[in-house]
C-alpha cells in the first residue's frame, strides 16, 4: 500500500518535481506511470524509496511515513523495494553477477544460494551467459536488463521500474512486461514508469499521468493482452544450454533453456 497525501517536491533551485499529488496504490496492484519528459515520474518514484524527501505532504509505504523514518531504518525500507533506475546505476567495479547478488550477499545468503538465485534471475532477463562481464562490457539493453535483475532478486514487496524498457527492442520489452506481470501476480506491487504507450495499451490496468509535476489523470484502461498464468517453479523444463558459468556455480538441477521464461 502506497499513499501520497498532498505531496509537493521542490528541488533546491526552485524546480518543481511534484506538485500537490495525492493518491493511493493498493498492495498487489500494477500501475503505469506516464507523462512527458520532465513531468515528475522519476521524482515520484524517488520519493517512495526516499532518495528524495517530500517538501510538503507525506508519503506512507505499507502504513509507514517514509518522510520521518529515521536514517538508520531507511535501508530496511529499501530492502522491501526493488528499483530499476532510469540510468541503471550499476557498480562498474563489480561484475554482473556481483551487481545482481549484492543484496543477497548483504543479507547473508551463503555463496551457493547467491549463485543460484543470481543465475535464476539473470536467466529470466536473458543474461545468464554474461554473468562474469563488467557493466561497461555490455550493450545498453544488456545493462538495463542487469538493472532489472538486480531489482527482482530479492522478491521485493514493491517494484519501482523507471523506464525499464527504454533501451530494449519491442520483443524484449514485451518479455520484460510479462515478467513484471508474473511478479505482480505473485503479489508484488509494481509501478512501471514508461513512455511506451503501446505497452500500456496491450496490458491495460491503472494509468497515472503526470504533467508539469501535477497528477493530470488517474484512469483505468482496458488491455488487449491476456495476463500470463503464474509461473510454476516445479514445472518440467527444457534441458539447460550448458553454460560454463552455471557449471562453475555448482548448479546441477535442470534449468530453463528459454532465456527469459517467456514461454511459460
Amino acid at each position: 500500500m502506497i499513499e501520497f497525501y498532498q505531496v509537493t517536491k521542490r528541488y533546491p533551485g526552485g524546480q518543481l518535481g511534484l506538485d500537490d499529488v495525492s493518491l493511493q496504490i493498493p498492495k498487489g496492484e500494477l500501475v503505469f506511470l506516464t507523462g512527458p519528459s520532465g513531468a515528475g515520474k522519476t521524482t515520484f518514484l524517488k520519493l517512495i524509496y526516499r532518495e528524495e524527501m517530500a517538501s510538503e505532504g507525506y508519503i506512507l509505504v505499507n502504513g509507514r511515513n517514509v518522510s520521518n523514518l529515521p536514517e538508520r531504518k531507511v535501508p530496511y525500507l529499501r530492502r522491501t523495494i526493488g528499483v530499476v533506475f532510469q540510468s541503471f546505476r550499476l557498480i562498474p567495479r563489480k561484475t554482473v553477477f556481483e551487481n545482481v547478488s549484492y543484496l543477497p550477499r548483504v543479507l547473508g545468503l551463503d555463496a551457493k544460494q547467491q549463485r543460484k538465485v543470481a543465475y535464476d534471475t539473470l536467466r529470466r532477463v536473458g543474461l545468464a551467459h554474461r554473468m562474469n562481464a563488467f557493466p561497461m562490457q555490455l550493450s545498453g539493453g544488456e545493462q538495463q536488463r542487469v538493472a532489472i535483475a538486480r531489482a527482482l532478486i530479492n522478491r521485493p514487496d514493491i517494484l519501482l521500474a523507471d523506464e525499464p524498457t527504454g533501451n530494449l527492442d519491442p520483443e524484449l520489452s514485451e518479455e520484460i512486461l510479462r515478467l513484471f506481470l508474473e511478479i505482480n501476480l505473485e503479489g508484488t506491487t509494481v509501478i512501471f514508469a514508461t513512455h511506451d504507450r503501446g505497452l500500456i495499451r496491450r496490458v491495460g490496468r491503472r494509468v497515472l499521468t503526470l504533467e508539469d509535476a501535477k497528477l493530470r489523470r488517474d484512469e483505468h484502461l482496458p488491455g488487449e493482452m491476456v495476463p500470463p498464468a503464474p509461473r510454476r517453479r516445479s514445472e518440467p523444463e527444457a534441458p539447460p544450454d550448458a553454460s560454463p558459468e552455471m557449471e562453475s556455480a555448482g548448479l546441477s538441477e535442470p534449468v530453463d533453456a528459454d532465456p527469459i521464461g517467456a514461454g511459460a
Partner: protein
Amino acid sequence: MTFLQALLYFTREASVNLIRGWKVSLLAILTITLSLFLTGSFFLVSSNLSQLTKTWRGESKVVVYFAPGTDSAARDRVRGEIAAAAWSGEVSEVSPEQAATRFRSAFPSLEDLLEGWGDEPLPASLEIQVDWSTVDGEAMRADLETLRTDPVVDMVDDDRDWLAQLETAVLLLRGLALVLGGVLLLTAVFTIASIIRLTAYLYHDEIAVQRLVGATEFFIRGPFYIEGLLQGLLGGTLAAASLALGHWLALRRGDGLLVSVLLERFLVPSQLLLLVTLGGLAGLFGAVASLRKESLGRTAEVPDGGWEEEV
C-alpha cells in the same frame, strides 16, 4: 551473519577491490610508503643520533682537586662520600705524580716548569664519570656545592663549559626530533587520510548505489575500512622493507663517519612493527574520516554543481 563472517566478507571484498582498482591502490600505497619511509628514516637517524649524544654524555666527568698536602685518609673519606652519591659513576683517583705525567705529555715544552716545584707540583684529584642521562641535576649541583666547602677540597671542576655546549646540542637534537617527528607523523597521517579520502570520492557513486539498494552503513563501510587498513598495512610493510634495504645499501656502499654515525644501528623489530601498525591505523583512520556520512551526500543524482558537492 556473524561479525566474523562479516569481517571475512569485508576482507574478501576489499582484496578484490584493491586488485581491480590496482592503479589507484598502488598510487595510494606508494604515497603511504613514502610518508612512512620518511618518518621511519627520521626515527632511524634520530635514534642513532641520540645514541651518539649518549656517548658524548658518557665522556663527561667531574674533577675534584684536593688541597696540596691532603692525606690519603681525607682523600678516601671524600671519595667515599662521592661514591655514595646517586649521580656518581666510576670514581678514579689521580695522584700528584699522575697529574704531573699528564701535564708533561700535554705540554712537553713546559716540562722544566714542573721541576722547580718540588715533590708535589700538582694537586691530587678525583675524576668522577657522570652518566648525565640518569642524573638528577639539582641534587648533583647541591652535592658539588657541599664538596666545595670541604676544607680538603681545593676546587671542583664539573666541565661546565663543555656540558653547556653538549646540553645545547642535546636540546637541539631533542627539539628537532620532537618537532620534526611530530610534524612528519602528522603529515603522514594527513597524507594517508587525504589519499584514502580521494579514492573514496572515486567510489562515491558506488557507495550511493549500495545505499540505494538497501545496504546498511555497516556493510557499505566495512569493505572500505578494510581496504584503507590493507592499503595502510601494505604501505607500512613496504616502508619497513625499503628502510631495511636502504639501510643495508647505505652501509654497504657509503663509507665514512656520516654513514656510520647516522645509520650504525637499524630500528628494532618493535619499531618496525610500530611503523606498519601506524600505516594500518592511518589507512583505517583515513577511511573512517572519508566515509563520514555527511561527506558523501546520500543522493547521488542531486548534487548542486557536480558530484563532488554536498546537498
